[in-house]
């Protein structure tokens, strides 16, 4: 005898408890601390802050712990928290030119004012799994040196001085900066919303699109003009005192790509740009972002649009991994009512098909 299914509430409660148990894992194993995550898995924390659109190492570490290491789940937690925070306003634009540089490289010139600084990087390491890291490893003290007070002007500013590269699109000082989290996106999108969309976009998605452009799907000959990582000051205009107040500094990575030159009937040709900016040390992200920023400008620059990386609606509608995973995973929700409708229609069509297949011989018999 059939009894209607009940008890969903109990099932959910039990599922939550089981999840918490799995998350903790073997109780004999020491519990991971937020400090450990922030210090030793710092690149993961950087990613969660960037795509979560919130600079708070402690909260990002908590999110990673709560999400059991699932980065997109962690990003979701951070975003949901961010949505509850009161908004005071926007900071002054950060001056990345004044960055306290820890790493700074350019592929366009052999040497640049301020020098090429390798900094802490996986580049040039040999990807050999190191068993020494498995059990308590104390690395050597890094070599020390005098911090240089030499200026580190942006490579793109150097090129710009001679007019060799297009100027960075100037923002209208009077116009308010758009906020992607407060207004719905519509196309064509202005540069501010486009860059916000790319800044919080899924790193893997942008990586694939950037890669595709290098392989010919919307190629624009990128050179890494400059990648810099370090601390920048954040300032907020305090109305009551009438000047910008420093709030502290945050770690950021900036990438300027120098791309295919372009001229017009009325202007001499010059290099074009792509721009990427992210929290923490996020080179893959900023490089991909800069490449996609440039490919999305195809229409603006009069280039033929025929590759996915150049399709603004396609890229910007699918770059948000929290939205993407929500919709992909929503397929786990019950859909049996609609499935029932489809079953009904299908059965009807199959019945008609079977009847039609039988019909002709009967007609002949009648004749």
């Amino acid at each position: 005898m059939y009894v209607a299914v009940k008890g969903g509430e109990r099932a959910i409660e039990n599922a939550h408890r089981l999840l918490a148990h799995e998350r903790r894992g073997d109780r004999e194993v020491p519990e991971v601390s937020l400090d450990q995550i922030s210090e030793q898995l710092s690149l993961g924390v950087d990613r969660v802050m960037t795509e979560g659109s919130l600079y708070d190492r402690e909260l990002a570490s908590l999110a990673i712990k709560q999400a059991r290491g699932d980065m997109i789940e962690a990003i979701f937690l951070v975003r949901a928290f961010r949505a509850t925070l009161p908004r005071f306003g926007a900071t002054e634009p950060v001056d990345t030119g004044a960055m306290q540089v820890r790493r700074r490289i350019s592929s366009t010139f052999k040497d640049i004012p301020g020098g090429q600084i390798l900094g802490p990087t996986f580049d040039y390491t040999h990807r050999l799994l190191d068993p020494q890291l498995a059990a308590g490893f104390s690395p050597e003290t890094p070599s020390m040196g005098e911090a240089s007070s030499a200026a580190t002007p942006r490579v793109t500013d150097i090129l710009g001085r001679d007019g060799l590269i297009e100027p960075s699109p100037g923002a209208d000082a009077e116009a308010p900066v758009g906020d992607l989290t407060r207004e719905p996106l519509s196309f064509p999108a202005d540069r501010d919303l486009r860059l916000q969309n790319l800044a919080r976009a899924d790193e893997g998605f942008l990586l694939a699109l950037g890669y595709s452009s290098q392989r010919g799907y919307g190629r624009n000959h990128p050179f890494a003009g400059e990648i810099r990582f370090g601390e920048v000051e954040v300032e907020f205009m305090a109305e009551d005192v009438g000047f910008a107040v420093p709030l502290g500094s945050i770690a950021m990575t900036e990438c300027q790509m120098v791309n295919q030159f372009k001229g017009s009937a009325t202007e001499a040709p010059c290099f074009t740009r792509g721009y990427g900016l992210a929290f923490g040390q996020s080179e893959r992200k900023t490089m991909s972002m800069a490449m996609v920023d440039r490919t999305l400008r195809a229409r603006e620059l009069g280039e033929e649009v025929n590759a996915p990386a150049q399709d603004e609606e396609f890229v910007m509608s699918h770059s948000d991994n929290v939205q993407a995973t929500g919709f992909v995973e929503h397929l786990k929700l019950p859909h049996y009512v609609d499935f029932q409708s489809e079953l009904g229609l299908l059965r009807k069509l199959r019945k008609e098909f079977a009847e039609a297949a039988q019909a002709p011989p009967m007609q002949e018999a009648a004749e």
Partner: protein
Amino acid sequence: MNAPAYNFAYLDEQTKRMIRRAILKAIAIPGYQVPFASREMPMPYGWGTGGVQVTAAILGPEDVLKVIDQGSDDTTNAISIRKFFGKTAGVATTTSTADATVIQTRHRIPEAPLHGGQILVYQVPIPEPLRFLEPRETETRRMHALGEYGLMHVKLYEDIARFGHIATSYAYPVKVNARYVMDPSPTPKFDNPKMDNCPALQLFGAGREKRIYAIPPHTTVVSLDFEDHPFTRYRFDAPCALCGADDSYLDEIVTDDKGGRMFVCSDTDYCESRQAAGHRGSESVAPHKERAHG
């Protein structure tokens, strides 16, 4: 650490105001999709954030809330959403369609007719009825603005040419107030006629796609069709095995692995109310007297 404090029904008042403005605009233009700045909610996009934001924006302390998914109060996501509002708003909740003031639903319209003063909030995954014919938002916006719905009819024509029928069984497109073509959300086409001239206010929230639309009470809602291929409701031709109803949408329950099947009302409140009133079906527990079906 920054510990969060939550407002009534989770959303802050400014956000609620923004959503209400969108709702008012939607009511003023029946069937038109109003863009709104959807917030990141504590449940994933695609799991009802649009419906939850609409409900959160309109809920007051005196409201009585019912939440259903696939017609049932007891499915996992309906429970999860009901608990969410229980926690953040503390409003009274119910499983009774008649007693609710606000009903949030996914994929079904309740069988019991709604009355004036009730609000039905639909969860919508893809608000754009033309989306699968024309993927570009810029183009579909233009089509709606100019009332260019030829493409929609092309799809219906193709269905008839290929299958002999219009091959849409759910999310069946409708024309609202003789102006905008609208997607009613993935409700089975069986439910479409309930939207027409409904005494309740119908609100539609799509969180991920960031759109809100509405059908004010007593608005005409007509399912698209051809004169010679008129819209028909589909329903499995059998009464509910538990309550005997022959006018409600049925779920198919697989009872064994030999092809055993049973059909039961999808709307659990409707079915239970009928059983409480003495109606019985072929699979009911106690022996009974046959009662006239209401």
